């Protein structure tokens, strides 16, 4: 389906806004997938190595579909590779949580769990989007995300309700990463514009379900929910923590050094 043939509500929204909206989703999956990819060869067990790589590939697959669509919305001839490899950090619109470093296995699991639970709510809502193309991508991603959440929630419970050391480590990671979750649910003008024409969900309305799920898993994991931290992070507006630039340097250096390289 071409963007022009989508529903009438969709065409009311300027293509530039829709481009940036899709980029937010694409970049969050891409950056999180790249982070998980850093675990390959380093995970605590062979089986976990494969599990993390599988999730990373799912996320990069989502990013490819979304970036391709974003490129079409933009209409300047940029394909998925151009968008992934030839943009600088301030042009990335991922949620700040996704770019946070892996830390230890527990920290990666906490980051994964918080984002999996968010992506599940997002993709579920987006699968009913008035933008048919976006709804299709979301429906496919939702199936993958349900498995990711099962994996990360399972590990969070094992580690939280595990040894004294594993409990202390994941609690520390949770306390450190919690401040990045506010961004996921506080809508800005673009989010409100997308919600108004039925393309995107009302972010604030997703929060109660997300919180209920988080709380249920934290309770099983014997972990404390950190206090609310209203600090507004702006990854989705291109204002990033210092970690993203380093990650992109590694991710982009090959295609930038050898443009158009194939193998």
């Amino acid at each position, binding site marked *: 389906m071409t963007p022009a043939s989508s529903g009438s509500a969709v065409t009311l929204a300027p293509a530039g806004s829709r481009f940036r909206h899709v980029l937010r989703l694409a970049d969050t999956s891409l950056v999180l997938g790249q982070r998980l990819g850093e675990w390959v060869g380093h995970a605590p*067990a*062979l089986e976990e190595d494969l*599990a993390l790589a599988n999730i990373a590939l799912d996320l990069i697959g989502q990013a490819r579909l979304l970036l391709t669509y974003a490129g079409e919305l933009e209409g300047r001839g940029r394909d998925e590779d151009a968008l992934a490899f030839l943009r600088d950090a301030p042009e990335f619109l991922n949620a700040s949580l996704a770019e946070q470093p892996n830390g230890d296995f527990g920290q990666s699991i906490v980051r994964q769990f918080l984002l999996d639970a968010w992506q599940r709510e997002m993709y579920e809502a987006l699968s009913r989007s008035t933008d048919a193309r976006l709804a299709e991508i979301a429906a496919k991603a939702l199936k993958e995300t349900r*498995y990711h959440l*099962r994996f990360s929630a399972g590990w969070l419970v094992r580690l939280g309700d595990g040894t004294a050391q594993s409990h202390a480590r994941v609690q520390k990671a949770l306390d450190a990463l919690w401040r990045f979750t506010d961004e996921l649910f506080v809508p800005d003008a673009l989010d409100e514009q997308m919600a108004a024409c039925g393309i995107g969900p009302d972010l604030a309305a997703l929060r109660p379900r997300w919180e209920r799920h988080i709380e249920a898993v934290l309770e099983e994991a014997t972990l404390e929910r950190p206090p609310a931290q209203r600090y507004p992070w702006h990854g989705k507006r291109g204002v990033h923590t210092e970690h993203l630039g380093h990650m992109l340097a590694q991710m982009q250096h090959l295609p930038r050094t050898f443009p158009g390289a194939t193998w």
Partner: protein
Amino acid sequence: MNDDWPLFEVFIRARSGLEHKHVGSLHAADARMAVEHARDVYTRRQEGVSIWVVRSSDILASDPEEAEALFEPARDKVYRHPTFYAIPDEVKNL
């Protein structure tokens, strides 16, 4: 870490209607994790629609030293083979 995890045997059903087949083994903390690991290790290329796992220590294997007593007596009983029937071409998976 793997040293602390017990070994599980993995069985995969390739398609509905077929039996589960042994495909290998892996380490996991418990049966639930073993199913998830089996999904990631053994079904990445759409090899299956169903997974069974069982702790390797729960399998009782026949003793190779008893092989003669167990298997030799069947050797001279060719009439037990269904080779006296013509199998129609249409029959698959037999």
